[in-house]
């Protein structure tokens, strides 16, 4: 029997997380601490690849709740925004300006059938690089192919 998180949590189907990821088609994503996803995808990865894999896996996740009363109640995609943290909540800059990625959101997650928690985080820096590379690719194409 896998262990369970000692923090308050809701239960979230991975297909619902996929639907939430789909709502940000231009974002890229980073996973830290999950051997399942990091054995299947190359991170950072774009939204479409992550969403497709979460749908294929189709299994329940536990997501960290901000309310101490959460004890595994089911939630869906609409709840996820309110459960996300941001990096700047956890970094100290000695008064200097936060780096651009500090606004990236992250979710504390746990596969219900596997041990160990992990993080899913937006990677806005990689999304910006990919956007710039797409612009280069489009500019290099002949006009008829754009």
């Amino acid at each position, binding site marked *: 029997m896998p262990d369970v998180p000692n923090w308050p949590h809701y239960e979230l189907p991975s297909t619902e997380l996929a639907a939430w990821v789909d709502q940000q088609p231009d974002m890229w994503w*980073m996973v*830290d601490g999950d051997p399942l996803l990091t054995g299947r995808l190359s991170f950072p990865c774009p939204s479409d690849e992550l969403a497709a894999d979460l749908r294929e896996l189709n299994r329940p996740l536990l997501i960290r709740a901000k309310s101490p009363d959460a004890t595994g109640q089911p939630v869906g995609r609409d709840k996820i925004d309110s459960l996300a943290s941001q990096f700047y909540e956890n970094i100290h*800059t000695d008064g200097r300006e936060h780096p651009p990625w500090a606004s990236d959101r992250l979710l504390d997650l746990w596969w219900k059938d596997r041990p160990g928690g992990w993080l899913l985080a937006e990677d806005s820096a990689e999304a910006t690089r990919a956007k710039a590379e797409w612009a280069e690719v489009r500019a290099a194409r002949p006009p008829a192919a754009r």
Partner: protein
Amino acid sequence: MPRPPIDLSRKIKDILGHVEPLPPESAVPIRHYDRTANDIWKSLAYVERAFEKGNRYPTVVDRHLGRLYGMALVQLIEAFERFLKEVAAACVDRLATIIGDDRFGLFTIKGSALASHFGAATLGKSLCESATWLDCEEVNKRFRKLLSDPFQEDGKFWLFPSPYKNHPPADQQSRYEPMGVIWQLRHTAVHNVGVITRSDAVKLRLLAREPVSGDVLLAPTWDDLRHLRRFLDETATVCNERVGKRLADLLTLLHDQTPGLFVPQEMADRLAADFRLTVVVAGATGVPPPD
């Protein structure tokens, strides 16, 4: 205070005890590769962000990051080399007991090293782990022989098909030239600590077919690593699929010739698990087990 007297010989041996268990993904070559490449990348991204956050001395940070990028470049390439070995080992393990030609003759183990191979987990690992897989021609030769039709002198399977020899399939020939450059970059980083010697420069110029300076220090950028990583990831995925399908075809041929050799469904299931692919062996479909 003088340096304390420490038994350094003992301390060096102690390094061997500082280990971690292999992750479960190590049983499946493509999963093992993906996991390792992701781990390397996460470490690099973590350090880069930590440096960026406290960035008071940009020149110093750039120098340290440049060194780390060089290390990550080597690790990514070596993760790919290990993937090739593990894929080859999986092929050997599926074929070893059902085929009697000389295809395994190209793997040689010296008598002096034989004892250590008795500890290897499988015949495939024993034959494939000790050699280096750092050259397109050598890798091609091994997979071609390993996956050739029974009792054929030369196979027709080129893992890295050469555009100069017009090896099939044509749509994979574009990987040959960059793979050659990647192997040589690894050589430069590992054996000369990143110094592109004049002789390295000559080899790289021939491989890349464009001017390359010698007597300079390799200083890969973050974007260089991103592109290397993506190329290796995509190449690993393609290699895994091509080898898995070719092995399934070869096993089908062997079963057609001698139907009692193995049970097709069992073999298809094993292949599907080894390669995480849906494969067909002698009419039986193997589906990858859930992760």
